[in-house]
């Protein structure tokens, strides 16, 4: 059976994928930018719009990282505003489960779900490091090993709150004077991390409750997703890695009595489209050069090596030292647990091609996922989905706010022609778009 593709639009983030030096690059904070991208995604009948979260500005060598976009708004507030200017598009918020309490999460997300008529999603992320914790009351209070335990308990309680009203509890009988059934919203829960009880103040939304997204990649993260998530925002965009990940995660579902369709796997991908394949390659190369300036190449190499490499010339050879793990040279972003093999690969490629450090970073780290004419891109994306490397994609544009426009104008029509992507929304809720049950 032909699978239908699911698409999401990721607002450009604070890593070097986002090109801010281009004349077309707009504000990362003005509401007009969010509105533009959301309206583009809705024009393209995308499933949802996705916002990441920041809890502390990134640092390199103890100073605020200044080479990439810095600063962003708080996601639930932006998405509540976008609910006013969109009608069908799903609205996904990344919100940390470590530094929020379940009741607060449940209330804010359910509010977004009501305000949008059933279009909200929660991307559950965790954090454990003391670096982020310095902005919060409890500091870095969690062991790394405990972060999913807390996340799982938090999600379980959030869902309990969302389900604390049955579908019949909201009565709204004006004449009789019954707003809600007595007892609606009552809850109590106790576990290793939480001890909560009381009443939850929001009934089910038109989609029941928000969709749950998960983005972790570790074995624990995958297991968490298999048990609890409805969408995985994965990092495995390439065909082979995508298939391996897809098979691994979907195989875990049976353990929890879940059908394969109940969890959609959507890797983050980048797309460069042009009139023909050669032009697209050229454009992609230009974008990669924009993404990796000399200073950025050094910082990305420092992230991999775990060492201060500021003495190196980005246009010279690769560092000769061996990488180290867990040095904390860069803070506030995901590092490498096993950098050795990657460094070896970089060295081999640099030697074979005569690349400088910067050229190596450009070629090894920032290769876009789909590059080509609209027909080439549509063909490749469809193959990924039909051959189970993905159920869909989270598109990460390199430009704010117009980076998605070429894809929606040129590729989406071809996906529609192939009958693998909707031409209009059949339903009104995000669960409708994703084919998920309530």
């Amino acid at each position, binding site marked *: 059976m032909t699978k239908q593709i699911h698409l999401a639009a990721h607002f450009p983030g604070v890593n070097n994928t986002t090109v801010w030096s281009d004349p077309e690059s707009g504000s990362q904070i003005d509401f007009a930018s969010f509105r533009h991208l959301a309206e583009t995604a809705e024009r393209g009948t995308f499933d949802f719009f996705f916002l990441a979260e920041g809890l502390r500005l990134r640092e390199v060598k103890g100073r605020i990282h200044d080479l990439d976009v810095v*600063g962003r*708004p708080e996601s639930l507030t932006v998405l*509540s505003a976008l609910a006013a200017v969109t009608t069908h598009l799903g609205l996904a918020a990344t919100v940390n489960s470590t530094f929020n*309490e379940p009741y607060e999460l449940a209330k804010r997300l359910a509010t977004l779900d009501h305000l949008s008529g059933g279009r909200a999603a929660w991307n559950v992320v965790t954090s454990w490091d003391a670096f982020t914790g310095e*902005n919060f009351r409890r500091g870095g209070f969690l062991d790394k090993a405990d972060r999913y335990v807390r996340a799982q308990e938090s999600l379980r309680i959030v869902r309990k709150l969302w389900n604390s009203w049955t579908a019949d509890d909201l009565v709204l009988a004006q004449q009789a004077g019954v*707003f809600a059934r007595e007892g609606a*919203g009552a809850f109590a829960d106790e576990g290793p991390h939480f001890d909560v009880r009381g009443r939850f103040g929001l009934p089910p939304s038109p989609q029941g409750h928000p969709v749950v997204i998960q983005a972790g990649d570790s074995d624990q993260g995958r297991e968490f997703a298999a048990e609890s998530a409805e969408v995985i925002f994965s990092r495995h965009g390439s065909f082979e890695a995508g298939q391996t990940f897809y098979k691994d995660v979907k195989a875990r579902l049976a353990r929890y009595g879940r059908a394969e369709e109940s969890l959609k796997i959507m890797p983050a991908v980048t797309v460069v489209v042009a009139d023909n394949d050669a032009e697209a390659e050229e454009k992609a190369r230009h974008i990669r050069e924009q993404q990796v300036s000399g200073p950025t190449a050094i910082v990305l190499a420092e992230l991999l090596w775990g060492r201060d490499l500021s003495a190196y010339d980005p246009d010279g050879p690769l560092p000769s030292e061996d990488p180290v793990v867990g040095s904390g040279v860069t803070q506030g972003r995901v590092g490498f647990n096993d950098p050795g093999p990657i460094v070896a690969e970089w060295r081999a490629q640099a030697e074979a091609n005569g690349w400088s450090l910067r050229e190596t970073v450009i070629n090894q780290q920032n290769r876009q996922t789909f590059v080509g004419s609209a027909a080439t891109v549509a063909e490749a994306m469809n193959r990924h989905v039909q051959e189970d490397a993905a159920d869909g994609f989270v598109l990460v544009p390199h430009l704010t706010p117009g980076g998605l426009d070429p894809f929606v104008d040129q590729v989406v029509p071809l996906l529609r022609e192939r009958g693998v992507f909707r031409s209009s929304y059949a339903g009104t809720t995000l669960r409708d778009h994703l084919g998920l049950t309530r």
Partner: protein
Amino acid sequence: MSRRLITALDIDGAGGHPAAWRGSEIDPAAILSGELAVRAVQRAEAAGVDLATFADALEAPADVPERVGARLDAIGLAARIAPVTDRIGLVPTLTVTHTEPFHLQASVATLDHISSGRAGWLVDVSSSEEAAAVIGRREPAPAAETWREARYVVDVSRRLWDSWEDDAIIRDAATGRFVDRERIHYVDFESPSFAIKGPSIVPRPPQGHPLTVVRVASEEALQAVGEADVVLLPGTADLADRLAAVRAAGSKPRVLISVSVLLDGNTANAVRRADGAEQLDHIGGVERLADLIAEWSQAGVDGIHLRPASLELDVPVIASKLLPLLRERRLAGPAVGRAVTLRTRLGLRHPANRYAVGGRQ
């Protein structure tokens, strides 16, 4: 000439009257979709009301089947309304006792960004058993302690709003730097109950500091007056004494008397509608209310915060009758026709950034 009064409207469910949701003019589902609030705020904006507050509490409304037993998160609702309004101030209630201060300030800063400088927050505290139990993080604390902590929360929020200088984003392609990190600052804040390193994740809000509003309904709340841009004084009793207490406690906040109103010139209708309401500060026509407002103005308040019994019945009367009457009597200024920040609208200055080196801003 009397001075121009600030006018504010409270949004709470279908209105302050417990039975407001039961009126035939109301679609109760519109409370949860936000449509009822959208319509009321748009009506108020068109009539020239300066700002809308949004009621909230951490805990859910009490489980009383005949009352509105559901409530949207106030800042979400205010954000939903921001894109469909362009002049009115938006001031959601945020309970600062349990939620992380870092999140609170980021949300309020974000509301200020998406509304182009029309945001504020009505800072509230909670001593209730219910709120403590739904969060489960700590025991309920006495009011004096929660208000003392609220002062610290407002203080650190302002510091975090200042942690980015207005011109921190430089986009300097020549050096490859997006920001000038010399213009982004750690706040290194410590209070008895929490510490925050900073800087904020959100660039400085358009107003510098979104408006801080405090409702003074108790002796303990007077502690926070020193941090307030605007104070709400609920009820009409002992107005002069309470006003004096606020003036003694605070630097120079604008003080708004906060009154529950049910507006109907037909006495029989008004009395019928008032049935079942908790005590209302004014029941009746707009003429009498305008007289009272003139008296309060004489007593020294800077404005009025109206809590309508019904959004659908009373807001249209406030918009079409009360505001024009206040203007006629020169109690209210002309409706502001153009989009300005809430601070500008209320005549409050743009705060200097405490971290900026002299001369840079």
